[in-house]
């Protein structure tokens, strides 16, 4: 709170009351939780057609702020303050009746995950139609509603027959478009978008944000964009607020905050950002990969291959998801597999790990062919670290017990536990904690420790950092880089995020629709991609917008 007034504040509280009546102005928004104030009072205003970005890591209070403005705070939390819209002024806390008249019609909230924010058993058209019905005073005729749904879909560049589809029949990007159509069908004054692209692939993220931007300009709608990703905000928001521990630590015009951050926290966020901008990539590579790359490049040819998967095909029913994919991982080498969801990148990893049975093809480990399935693999050959550290650890038993179980599998004494915790840079007193007491990053460290307990030769990381905040992501990547040097691990790293793969991998395979479209040294592929798809991916993952 103390630092809110320190920077050049162009559009906050100053113009309230006397300024343009069409802008959305929020004054003294405060959120109280069960244990006192969780978000300290702050003001902001957004002009029609403009975007304000609210940046912070998880736990900073940014999502609570979004929910407070939409009247959707979870039980135990309450908000104070004033929301001034052109059509109404809402004094918080407001009654249910006030929110009923506000939500959807004046303020709409778009959620992070398009895979869960649409009801899986209702057709997309029906879900858009519900919003339309909720906001219209009179009962619409069937034809009228269908026409409005088609029009809403057209606005988000989707064909009319999407109305008949169920969410599971659509890709993540298309689902988020449907969600946008549903959120905006009632023409709200303010759209709050809570991490609207975090769950999407790189090539979809830009498209969705640009679509939102276009709709906003067309309708003169104000938008509050919540994000943990500073790079994404570049060129897509006029102003930015940086929030930490429930307080605004920095605010201002986006470009000046990003280019000349005044608060150390903002600087740390910018440095941790893994966008493919030269500056941050440079920092990251010197921190994690320098010196290793050359050694590993030698290893690639000299010491030989640890895992060779040749011509792997995998079909589920009559749907073929892998068309003859070949992947090799050399000893001590880190290999990245990049692709969007549905590209088959997880399936090839699962085939190698024996969690899926390949339909045809040969997987060799250390020169010997491994038959499909888990039975033919030993724990010491390979271990896998999954994406979600929240569901991959047993919540009922302590970290120490989880790890001791893994040590026992490996035939190692339980006294190795402390060494194992130190290996992943966790304090030894963590052994007595349960997963619920740990943060996402700490849990992922435990998951890595568990995988390493059996001293495997190959570590498979399936989107292992995707669920983590940027700065935590970087710490885990640094840990993996350290481990591969210390333990001589081979790592197969699966990710949709080019920037993440770049920080760690020596070589990279780009997968699309179950085929390898490009492969080679990570540096070459990502700096000079030859396949148009890789070029598109690289372009999409550079958040730097052309206007800056």
């Amino acid at each position, binding site marked *: 709170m103390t630092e809110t007034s320190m920077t050049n504040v162009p559009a906050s509280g100053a113009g309230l009351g006397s300024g343009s009546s069409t802008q959305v102005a929020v004054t003294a928004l405060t959120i109280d939780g069960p244990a006192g104030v969780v978000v300290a009072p702050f003001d902001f205003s957004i002009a029609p057609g403009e975007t304000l970005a609210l940046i912070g890591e998880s736990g900073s209070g940014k999502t609570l702020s979004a929910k407070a403005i939409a009247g*959707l705070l979870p039980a135990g939390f309450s908000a104070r303050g004033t929301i001034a819209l052109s059509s109404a002024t809402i004094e918080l806390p407001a009654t249910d009746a006030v929110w009923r008249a506000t939500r959807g019609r004046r303020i*709409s909230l778009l959620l992070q995950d398009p895979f869960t924010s649409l009801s899986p058993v209702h057709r997309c058209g029906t879900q858009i139609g519900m919003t339309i019905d909720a906001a219209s005073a009179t009962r619409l005729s069937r034809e009228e509603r269908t026409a409005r749904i088609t029009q809403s879909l057209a606005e988000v560049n989707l064909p009319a027959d999407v109305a008949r*589809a169920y969410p*599971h029949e659509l890709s993540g990007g298309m689902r988020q478009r449907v969600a946008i159509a549903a959120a905006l069908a009632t023409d709200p004054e303010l759209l709050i978008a809570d991490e609207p692209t975090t769950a999407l692939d790189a090539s979809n993220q830009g498209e969705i944000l640009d679509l939102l931007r276009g709709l906003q300009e067309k309708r003169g709608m104000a938008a509050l964009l919540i994000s943990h990703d500073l790079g994404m905000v570049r060129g897509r928001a006029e102003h930015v607020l940086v929030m930490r521990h429930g307080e605004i630590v920095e605010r201002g015009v986006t470009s000046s905050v990003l280019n000349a951050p005044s608060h150390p926290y903002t600087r740390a966020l910018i440095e941790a950002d893994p966008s493919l901008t030269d500056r941050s990539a440079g920092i990251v590579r010197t921190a994690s990969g320098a010196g290793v790359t050359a050694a590993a490049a030698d290893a690639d040819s000299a010491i030989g291959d640890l895992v060779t998967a040749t011509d792997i095909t995998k079909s589920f029913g009559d749907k073929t998801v892998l068309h003859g994919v070949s992947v090799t991982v050399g000893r001590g080498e880190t290999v990245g597999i990049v692709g969007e969801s549905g590209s088959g990148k997880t399936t090839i990893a699962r085939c190698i790990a024996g969690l899926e049975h390949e339909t045809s093809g040969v997987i060799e480990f250390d020169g010997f062919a491994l038959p499909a399935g888990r039975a033919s693999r030993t724990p010491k050959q390979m271990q896998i670290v999954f994406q979600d550290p929240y569901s991959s650890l047993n919540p009922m038993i302590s970290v120490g017990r989880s790890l001791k179980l893994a040590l026992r599998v490996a035939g190692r004494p339980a006294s190795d536990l402390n060494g194992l915790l130190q290996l992943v840079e966790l304090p030894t007193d963590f052994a007595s904690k349960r997963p619920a007491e740990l943060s996402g990053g700490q849990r992922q460290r435990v998951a890595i420790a568990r995988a390493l307990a059996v001293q495997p030769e190959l570590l498979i990381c399936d989107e292992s950092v995707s669920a983590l905040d940027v700065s935590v992501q970087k710490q885990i990547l640094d840990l993996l880089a350290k481990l591969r040097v210390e333990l001589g691990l081979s790592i197969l790293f699966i990710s949709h995020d080019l920037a993440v793969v770049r920080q760690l991998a020596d070589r990279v395979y780009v997968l699309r629709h179950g085929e390898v479209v490009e492969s080679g040294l990570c540096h070459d592929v990502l700096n000079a991609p030859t396949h148009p798809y890789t070029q598109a991916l690289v372009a999409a993952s550079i958040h730097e917008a052309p206007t800056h």
Partner: protein
Amino acid sequence: MTTTPIARASQARSLGRMLVVRVLGTIGILLVLSIIVFSMLHLAPGDIVKNLLGNRASSPEAIAAIRAQYNLDQPLYMQYLIWLGNTLTGDFGQSIRLQDSVSNVIGSRLGITAALSGLAFLLAVIVAVPLGVQSAVRSGSWIDRFATGFGIVGLSAPTFAVGLLLLYTFAFYLPIFPVYGSGDGGLDTLWHLVLPAITLALGLGAIILKLTRTAMLRELESDYVTFGRARGLPDRQVHLIALRNAAIPIVTGASLVLTFLVGGTVLAETTFALPGLGTLLQGSVLFKDIAVVQALTLLVAVTIAIIALLADLAYIFLDPRIRAKESAQ
């Protein structure tokens, strides 16, 4: 990515194929069951002929007649095939206790049990589902506490005790409902079935209530409910969306409960002296009336198999994701 008419047609075709597979599977299970039911005759303690004769005098002629009627001179598999053939054509043999054909005996009592089960199930669903939804939506309120209390009582109170309590209260002290019997048909029979149906519905309803509440609580936590509220949908509609998503666990629960009901009618029928299949089964088991027991067991098995099949089909109807998965196989 979206479905074209051609894709839809092929989806319909593969759904049809799936349906045929399910029905064939059910028939297979019933065939296996029929072998078990058939062997009841041979597994029952005592001499087969003596068992089949019951309390009739065992003259050499009677024994010969029984041996001929049950083809006991034939090899076992022939006996089974003949029995199966008869069963499939509706000939279940003779009841030794009631001196009538088994199909007549069952046919005359099927109606009352079907009406009782149907009424009890209907009552349970009509009360328990809305109550479960309300208690999830207003979790912690008086309605939730009432529902939870109701659930505990319903689950823990034994059927016969509830039946007796209802009889005392609503037939003896407050003579609103009749004490026993099945009435003279039509509305009178319905009137006679009210108390036994409530007795059965209490236990059923408690399970459905718990299932509905749990499923709804989970769905209400989900993102699409938040998103629905965020874009201004009325509460009622949001709850309907959640209920539609909660329908699968509720249908599973309801179908399981329904199969329990088939066996559970015995107690209610005994308490209220209703001449239904439950009392028939009880009497026949006590009397070693094997032909009737076989027929009833088979009937229960067929009913349960059909309910399970319907529940499977309901999933496909309720969840488009299961539909897609089924038609992909």
